[in-house]
């Protein structure tokens, strides 16, 4: 979260349009990225942060073209390294609101190392992870999130790899904020991006994104009109985890430690039996279970799954410099050059 806010009443409120750049958009018609762009522009306009304080940093991939379409400071970098570059931006100027955009390949394959370490350090930035479960830009090879067995150009007989669940990787790296949204829901994505930005520390927003060309329909159960109500569990703080067309399905914790989908009104289950969401609990166990749910066995958890307060790296960095400076007698280079053992030649 940037410290510089628009609190002066005579500064005109920004609109999503103010964040549109004049660059020609090169995403395929129907690509989920368009919707995400709209949502993010809306979210940024809604927040009380000056336009010049946003820095949008991406790697390489279809999704990573994102900064070109944003009228903010932007940096389209190299494949996999967005997290590292974004980390440097934030350390150089902690007042900036840093947003990283990466695809599933960019963040979790070539950039996996930077991803986990950025999360571990808890640098105050928001990582938008566009998960289309495919390499879009290079035209359809499987990614670390592609389902096992998936046939792609580099797995003509089906992949034999176990995919990552990005949330598990993040929680393993001690993530403090994890949210999930879908490209088709502008409202949810906007809200979730705002929450992520408000959180101090590394916030991850995994956005289930459809690649119409190379992996069309991979999230269909969650996004299609006909099925989505049964496969979306939109989490809200302190609210029971209820979903379904008839709002009568819920989650309970089974004796074996697994989540179980129940129907309210059946087998004596009432709303009071259904689990209540707490994103702020430090213990990641429930967040792990929730974020690991996959359709069709379960609904897919959306919204803010985890949001735990913890001091950020940049905050600690600034504080440490202040503390050391207060105690040191070395105030400038001349002091340093002349410190310690020196002698004079006449």
């Amino acid at each position, binding site marked *: 979260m940037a410290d510089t806010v628009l609190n002066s009443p005579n500064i005109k409120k920004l609109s999503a349009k103010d964040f549109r750049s004049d660059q020609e958009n090169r995403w395929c018609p129907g690509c989920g990225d368009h919707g995400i762009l709209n949502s993010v522009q809306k979210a940024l306009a809604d927040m009380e942060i000056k336009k010049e304080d946003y820095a949008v940093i991406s790697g390489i991939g279809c999704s990573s073209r994102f900064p070109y379409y944003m009228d903010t*400071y932007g940096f*389209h*970098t190299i494949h996999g*390294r967005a997290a590292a570059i974004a*980390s440097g931006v934030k350390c*150089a100027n902690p007042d900036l609101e840093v947003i990283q955009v990466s695809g599933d390949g960019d963040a979790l394959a070539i950039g996996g190392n930077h991803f986990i370490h950025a999360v571990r350090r808890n640098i105050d930035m928001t990582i938008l992870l566009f998960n289309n479960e495919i390499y879009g830009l290079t035209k359809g090879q499987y990614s670390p999130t592609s389902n096992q067995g998936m046939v792609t150009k580099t797995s003509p007989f089906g992949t034999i790899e176990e995919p990552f669940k990005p949330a598990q990787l993040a929680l393993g790296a001690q993530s403090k904020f994890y949210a999930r949204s879908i490209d088709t829901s502008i409202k949810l994505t906007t809200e979730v991006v705002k929450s992520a930005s408000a959180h101090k520390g590394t916030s991850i927003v995994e956005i289930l994104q459809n690649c119409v060309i190379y992996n069309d329909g991979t999230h269909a159960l969650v996004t299609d009109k006909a099925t989505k109500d049964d496969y979306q569990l939109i989490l809200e703080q302190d609210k029971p985890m209820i979903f379904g067309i008839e709002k009568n399905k819920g989650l309970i914790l089974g004796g074996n430690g697994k989540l179980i989908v129940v129907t309210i009104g059946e087998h004596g289950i009432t709303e009071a039996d259904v689990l209540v969401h707490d994103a702020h609990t430090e213990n990641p166990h429930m967040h792990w279970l929730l974020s690991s749910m996959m359709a069709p066995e379960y609904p897919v958890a959306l919204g803010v799954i985890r949001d735990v307060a913890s001091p950020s790296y940049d905050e600690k960095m600034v504080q440490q410099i202040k503390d050391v400076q207060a105690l040191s007698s070395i105030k400038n*280079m001349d002091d340093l050059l002349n410190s310690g053992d020196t*002698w004079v*030649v006449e």
Partner: protein
Amino acid sequence: MSQKTKIIEREEVVIRFSGDSGDGMQLTGTQFSDTSALFGNDVATFPDYPAEIRAPQGTVGGVSGFQLHFGHQEINTPGDFADVLVAMNPAALQANLKWVKPSGTIIVNEDSFTDKNLEKAGYDSDPLMDDKLADYNLIKAKVTTLTRECLKDSELDQKSVLRSKNMFTLGMVYWMFDRPFEHTEEFIEKKFKKYPAVVDANKKVLRAGYNFAKTIEALAYNFSVAPAKIRKGTYRNITGNKATAWGLMAAAERANLELFCGSYPITPATEILQELAARKDLGVKTFQAEDEIAGICTAIGASFAGDFAVTTTSGPGLALKTEAAGLAVMTELPLVIVNVQRGGPSTGLPTKTEQSDLLQAIHGRSGECPMPVIAASTPSDCFHYAFEAGRIALEHMTPVILLTDGFIANGAEPWRIPKMSELPEIIAPIAKEGDDFLPYAREEKRLSRKWAIPGTKGLEHRIGGLEKMDGDGTVSYVPENHQVMSDIRKRRVALVAENIPEIKVKGNEEADVLVVGWGGTYGHLITAVRELQKEEKSISLAHFNYIFPLPKNTAEVFSRYKKIIVCEINDGQFAEYLRSSFQDIKFEQHNKLMGLPFTVVELKERFNQLLEEK
């Protein structure tokens, strides 16, 4: 201090302290060199760390050495061969005997020459017993026994008692060279402030060693090396790595920017990161990244956001940074990449020196990807060239590679402390609110674009690795534009030649032989050349610090000499680079790949040969 039998004046002396890693030889050597520097001698030192940190005790692999060269004249190298070798155990003798001058003095800790230690060091028989050392002035001292004896009333435990035995040898050498104790005593008092018993013990043992040498008259005479005629000023000892760190900090201060260093530890570059990390008081931000790629990438991010950003590494790390270095070239962001070269390829010889990353630095990136390359040549001038790397990077909006090497990085020498006000101010072309700004619009003189720093109102813009349209900076695949932009990138680096000094030859403007070197070989080359010049030989030295681009007068200088010999600690990379730049000039080569610096002796031999050849 004491009456002497006979004092012999010497111009210069080389001492090598060696022992097991735990014997405290680095500290002993540093004490001697600091004391000599304070005394007024010119000094050059070089620590020779064991290759393996946990090499078994008593083995050759675990020998740690420290060589120092001090004199009445200007000293430019730690010396080829030692006048005095201190060997704390058989392994140290085994590893270092070849570095002792014929008839030099060898001080051994006799107590450590046990059967077991001899075997570990690979000796079939005890060299102290046979006549292998007959040509040397061998001084056998029961250092362990005498130290124990001296501290028999001390409350210290045996381990701590034995730890002070390095002070015994230091005391002996102090007697031999007539050095005062004060500096070392002060050092001991400060270092062990919390342990008065340790302070007492060390001071006592130091004096015991001194008195022992005096009593046995370790030499029939003792040496005196008069102070050197040194330029007035305040001095300190400094290693190359520390000087590099400070030079970068100085550049940040003169540019009025915050310094950010993204780096991953690697021998022999790590101390730069460590030194910077210790300087939070000056606001330095260090980021120990998860790997070298993240090291440079965090630095690029910091540069984008307006810091003076640097990344530090050694050869293998430079290889990892290449793709990101290309991004910095493409986006024309200021960045200093420090590469402390070591023996390669691969893990190679991590603790040994080499100059074999030159072509990697000049060419080792994908695409046509020019960036300036400069090199430091002595431990203390690392400060100047680190500053210069920063100046060029910030004034020209470009990444710059600064090459140093393990030899000058770990070596130390006295350094006249500059005043910050003597250093030039660095002015980066930062765009201001309200400026007309296009991401790739350029100023005329250096063709650099402006640095529009995030947070500046109204200058929002996008940059990235994709080719950009000249001027407005939008993504461009236009064929002609790529030609234009490629030409500009080349021209921008060439223009750096307008902002660096010309090459100055040491010696006559015309001569039979011009010795050409670059980087860390300076000390050895200048010593060899000066010695030959004293012998009236027609030889001069052109030593390069600005590598790419070369100083403007390079071709003209080369044209004035009959023969040119390029000397480097690699297989001829600079020679190859010069050949491609000056195709009509013939370059001889002298090269070495042993992980070791040149020796003055070998250089003189080679130059003499060349001088004699018709």
